[in-house]
């Protein structure tokens, strides 16, 4: 059905006369130009701390770039795709990308499942609800360095976990086992970030109409059926957000392999692309190669995010 959007001039009022230039300006700034003023600080912030460095990194990745003292005349020739060829042919970089895929495959589904289940539980009328909410949130706001030290004590060869497992403890132990190091990091990050994602789901659950639950109850649905048929579909926008955020933060993994496994050990089994970027760019003085790794990572995360959105938002 076609609808008219034209608004007739009211009686007694005269429509303002607009020049073509004025119309263009009006279209550009909208009816409330002052909105630009309010948005400006954030736009400037984004340009300064996000867009400019990203653009500069992109430029670096196509040049022979190294850090130098200011005011020094330095040749930085355009090298085309050389840095990308170096990056894509580097076994350490390839391994770091494989590692991060393993990480995401464990971390993202686990994050979504645990945070949704726990948020649903915390949204219900349970005892000590406030205590549990705080407990889940505390790891998120605690400094990684402090929490990593606790996990080192838990998961080292003579740690509490192996003491409990006794003869079932893995050999080599968790953090020096090339198969288990990345999964342990994925579980650690899931646990540490869980509080934040539970909060997102709790906020989403507040908006689910009670009537839908009442209707399900009238229809005789069990709690599990209600969860699958009412809760999960109702919080789907939040799930999209959780998946995207978990993917983006997960792809930027650095602190945990740096601290928990001593710089991506054992033997590079837990090295992440960002850790390799740090080694190449900051430690070894090859920011151009590091920038190329960063660009590849950004593109990869964008692709994964688009796929996630497509899968999660389609009807």
């Amino acid at each position, binding site marked *: 059905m076609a609808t008219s959007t034209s608004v007739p001039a009211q009686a007694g009022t005269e429509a303002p006369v607009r020049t073509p230039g004025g119309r263009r300006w009006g279209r550009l700034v909208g009816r409330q130009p002052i909105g630009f003023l309010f948005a400006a600080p954030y736009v400037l912030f984004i340009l300064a701390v996000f867009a400019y460095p990203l653009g500069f990194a992109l430029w670096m990745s196509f040049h022979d*770039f190294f850090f130098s003292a200011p005011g*020094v005349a330095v040749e930085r020739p355009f090298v085309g795709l050389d840095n990308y060829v170096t990056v894509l042919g580097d076994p350490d970089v390839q391994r770091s990308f494989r590692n991060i895929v393993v990480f995401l495959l464990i971390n993202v589904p686990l994050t979504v499942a645990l945070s949704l289940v726990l948020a649903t539980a915390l949204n219900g009328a349970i005892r000590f609800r406030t205590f549990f909410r705080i407990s889940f949130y505390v790891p998120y706001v605690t400094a990684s360095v402090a929490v990593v030290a606790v996990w080192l004590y838990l998961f080292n060869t003579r740690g509490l976990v192996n003491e409990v497992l006794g003869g079932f403890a893995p050999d080599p132990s968790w953090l020096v086992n090339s198969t288990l190091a990345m999964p342990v990091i994925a579980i650690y990050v899931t646990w540490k970030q869980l509080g934040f994602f539970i909060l997102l789901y709790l906020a989403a659950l507040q908006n689910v109409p009670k009537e839908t639950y009442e209707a399900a109850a009238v229809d005789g649905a069990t709690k599990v059926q209600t969860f699958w048929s009412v809760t999960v579909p109702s919080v789907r926008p939040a799930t999209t957000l959780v998946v995207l955020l978990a993917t983006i933060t997960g792809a930027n993994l650095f602190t945990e392999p740096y601290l928990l496994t001593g*710089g991506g*050990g054992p*033997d590079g089994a837990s090295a992440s692309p960002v850790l390799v970027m740090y080694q190449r760019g900051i430690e070894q003085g090859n920011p151009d190669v590091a920038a190329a790794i960063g660009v590849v990572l950004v593109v990869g995360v964008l692709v994964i995010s688009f796929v996630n959105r497509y899968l999660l938002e389609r009807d």
Partner: protein
Amino acid sequence: MKRIVPAGLTGLVLLAGVACGGGGGESSGGGDAAAATGPIDIWYSNNQEEVAWGEAMVEAWNAENPDEQISAQEIPAGQSSEEAIAAAITAGNAPCLIYNTSPAAVPQFQKSAGLVNLDEIEGARAYIEERTGDKAEQYVSPDGAFYQMPWKSNPVMIFYNKAMFAEAGLDPENPPLATHEEFLATSRTLVEAGVATHAIWPAPSSEFFQPWFDFYPMFAAETDGSLFVEDGAAQFAGEEGVAVAEFWKTIYDEGLAGREAYNGDAFGDAQSAMSTVGPWAVAVYGEDIDWGVVPVPTSAGTPAEEVVTFSDAKNVAMYTACENQATAWEVLKFSTSEEQDGALLEMTGQMPMRQDLPGTYAEYFAANPDYEVFAAQAERTVEVPNVPNSIEMWQTFRDAYSESVIFGDVDVQEAFTGAAEDVDGLVGQE
């Protein structure tokens, strides 16, 4: 949200164009700065003993030079000193002098145009060579100039816990640690006796500098002083290098060293009976542990007085951001004078890199015999090679060492040969 990504990419393209305009430009020129005098800034290490020495040295200089005052501070906190210094060079706010410049980082700092060529200062080269002697040659850059002043070394030796050795039935005064075989047998005895979790526990982590405390000292000893890279070619994949690597591999394979990093100080916490240390360890463990010290082992059991090791030196460099370089040079000479070197030795236990150290400070070593063996060892040290891509080279080696020696996933010779080819390529680049 749908509009964010296209908008971001548009911005990215626009800003990339802006960024292309960055960098380059004319040099600010150092001609005026080279002759200028006036106040200067310096940084020194943050360990308690060096801070005390630094403060005393600055006080002594400032008392005599009211127009050329020194402002001193510890190196700003960072993941490492090298990162803090590299950031300062790039930002243009490096101080005049840094008393903790790692020789391994010098090629990178030099490439960044962050270091002053000391050869351009009248009399500087002669001063360095007269003070340090033949060893100074190791600190010359590939272009033939000095960009660092050799300052102090911490020759790496084996510290051991006498009480643990005695408990395991070993002679604590003359422990059998001279050859690889003796070292292995002693380590097995220690672990089997249950006196320590591991016989020795060097960090098994992958940082580029870790070879300086496990492989490189023993490689230097085994080769009687060969550098890691000589004449543009890696030396570690030869017979001696592989022998040292196989020695360490046996240690790891038999559980005599830990494949997992210890969360603390394994030697200090009595979790290991031995440790690779420099003379700084005397002050750190001196009162808590009844310790002994021996040179690093070799396969043939080189006499102790002939064993060469890694110097673990830290040097002083002058940075191009310095506006009063004439004063900086005078301060550099003052702080490395015989008197100040003596003060450094007394206050930190670290070995100034000057000729005939035991003879120059005979009185001190007579009064502090604990340090005498380190002073003798300081006469026989090798440095990291001063080559392009130095840190990338060490990381390449560490990765090969990690996969073949520590974790045993790859054959040692195969891993070392591959790493040597990579290193040859790296040091051959400009």
